């Protein structure tokens, strides 16, 4: 954080993403600033449409011709938006890799697991033939798939969802990337399988020092697996803090609202405090703070301008004009059925 700290592996400044829908241009990401340290695990939470996936698809340059990217994305100092496509292709897989929610459809259904893994090994490491197959086998062992030798000859449909996600992780590891972007990697999986996959990711990061961005709608998943968390709403980061600090003392009303809306598994049952209304559509954002129309603490000044993401105490930021003065505890009520 201070002078001697090594430069971040990834630095995003003023990132905007616009989509040309043919009829109009819709802005999905409105100026995101983020830094990611080497080996750090950053969690990104938000509801659907918050821009959390689009931000990282932009970093990977996977958004296609209809998207226009503005602002800075620096990977180790190199600007990703300015790079020619062949240079980006060399980064993908080798410097940064991405895994997705639905592993079974991310894999090719008509190719064997082994040949898909060997292809990744050939692309990123230049191995071929028998040595690529040996490396594929090693990767399957690495992600703790039993009977790796036999699995190499199987097709994705013969594997369970959890195993296919392990295969995807193995492919992502083929190029030994410095940064793994995991977009809802366990959302489609059962709870016990989710626990296995998250445990595997922790173990791999411990051994390799790989940085990770974990995108999830589940606060619990990011709380347990990340050092730092950024909360997104309607295309902006509204709060960012170290995990413990965020959960002990959420500052932004949206973060507080999310926590109050989430039922517990232990402790007394309480009525859930729902956030009223719905997430605004990206083409009809309210003026000023996008959360103001749903916010219990909103005042007229909230509609006057977009609140900047400002430092709020040590190592944390919040984008709310009421954070400094507001002292509203997350409401709890006894449950009455």
């Amino acid at each position, binding site marked *: 954080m201070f002078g001697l700290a090594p430069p971040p592996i990834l630095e995003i400044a003023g990132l905007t993403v616009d989509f040309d829908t043919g009829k109009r241009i819709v802005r999905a990401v409105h100026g995101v600033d983020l830094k990611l340290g080497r080996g750090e695990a950053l969690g990104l939470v938000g*509801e*659907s449409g918050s821009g959390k996936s689009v931000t990282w698809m932009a970093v990977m340059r996977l958004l296609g011709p209809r998207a226009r990217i503005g602002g800075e994305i620096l990977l180790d100092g190199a600007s990703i938006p300015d790079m020619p496509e062949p240079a980006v292709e060399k980064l993908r897989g080798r410097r940064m890799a991405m895994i997705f929610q639905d592993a079974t459809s991310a894999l090719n259904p008509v190719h064997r697991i082994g040949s898909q893994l060997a292809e990744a090994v050939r692309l990123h490491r230049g191995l071929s033939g028998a040595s690529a197959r040996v490396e594929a086998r090693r990767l399957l062992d690495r992600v703790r798939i*039993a009977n790796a030798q036999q699995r190499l000859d199987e097709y994705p449909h013969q594997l*369970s969802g*959890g*195993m296919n996600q392990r295969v995807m992780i193995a492919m992502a590891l083929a190029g030994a990337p410095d940064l793994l972007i995991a977009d809802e990697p366990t959302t489609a999986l*059962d*709870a*016990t*399988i*989710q*626990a*296995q996959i*998250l*445990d595997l990711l922790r173990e791999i990061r411990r051994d390799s020092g790989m940085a990770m961005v974990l995108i999830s*709608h*589940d*606060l*619990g*998943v990011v*709380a*347990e*697996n990340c050092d730092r968390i950024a909360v997104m709403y309607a295309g902006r980061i509204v709060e960012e803090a170290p995990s*413990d600090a965020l*959960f*002990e003392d959420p500052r932004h009303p949206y973060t507080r*609202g*999310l*926590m*109050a*809306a*989430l*039922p*517990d*598994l*232990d402790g007394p*049952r309480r*009525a*859930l*405090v*729902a*956030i*009223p209304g*719905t*997430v605004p559509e990206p083409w009809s954002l309210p003026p000023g703070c996008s959360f103001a129309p749903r916010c219990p603490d909103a005042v007229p000044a909230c509609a006057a301008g977009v609140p900047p993401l400002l430092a709020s105490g040590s190592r944390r930021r919040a984008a709310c004009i009421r954070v400094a003065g507001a002292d509203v505890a997350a409401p709890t009520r006894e449950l009455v*059925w």
Partner: protein
Amino acid sequence: MTAPLLVADAIERHYEVRRDGLLGKRRSLRAVDGVSFAVPPGRTLGLVGESGCGKSTTAKLVLGLVPLTGGTVRFDGQPVQARHDAAWRRQRRDMQMVYQDPLGALDRRLPVGRQIMEPLAIHRIGTPNGRRDKAMALLEAVGLGASHLGRYPHELSGGQRQRIVLARAMILEPRLLVCDEPVSALDVSIQAQVVNLLGDIQARFGVAYLFISHDLRIVRQVSHEVAVMYLGRIVEQGEPDRLFSQPEHPYTRALVSAIPTARGAKARERILLQGDPPNPVDVPSGCAFRTRCAWAQPLCAERRPELRPLADGTRVACHMTHGDIAARRAA
């Protein structure tokens, strides 16, 4: 004690499948294999388990949408048949269903107001004006207004659509609502709205819920009693606070420990299960969970543990919990 509204007694649904292609051996897939429970009027039974455990099949069996291959379902004392005759239709007025995907459950080409009134038309209840008034009252009960009557499903948000589905399910004033993952497709903030709405509807109309979900936190929130399923059978059943704070069955323990927590309580020890659940065509002998259980003993492979009550009423199907293993050692 009032008589239960819904009673499932040892219900079974087995499917004949061929393994290894057309000429393979016939095997039976036991989707639901001897499940019993009772739901009292105005109460909620939560059914939790992971994919493939048979919880959705149980819902379909209860409503007579899929025929039973064993056991009986009684609603208000009368057997529920899968024969879709006049008696079944009469019963179905009192038992409605809510699914996970509201967009799939609604007709995209019909204004939602018409869809809410449709059950009344099907059952020939009331006059057109009366139906409209009733639809209005229900729209209000689910937190929507008259302006929504003429809208189409695509003009509404996911949470609003699920409210429409609830209004439609409630218009016949059913006594039982079978909800299969009703909030799983919704965002956290919207989920809480619908969960609270389900509580309001129950308090106001006295409807009973069979509430099916993979989400333990949601199930604990809404249920008066919870049953945990694994491979077609209930392995543990009891009062939700007790069951989730002090799970007895090794599977429930692993399931509870696998839930990530956002509230700093990182002390909870995680039990990582090895591998995936077995194929329901090849259910292990004895206890179906024994292949993934850290405490499994030879007895677990020999004899299937029955669901039996502990001293405090929690029901568990495990040889270890009931001391059967210790008893055998002593013998």
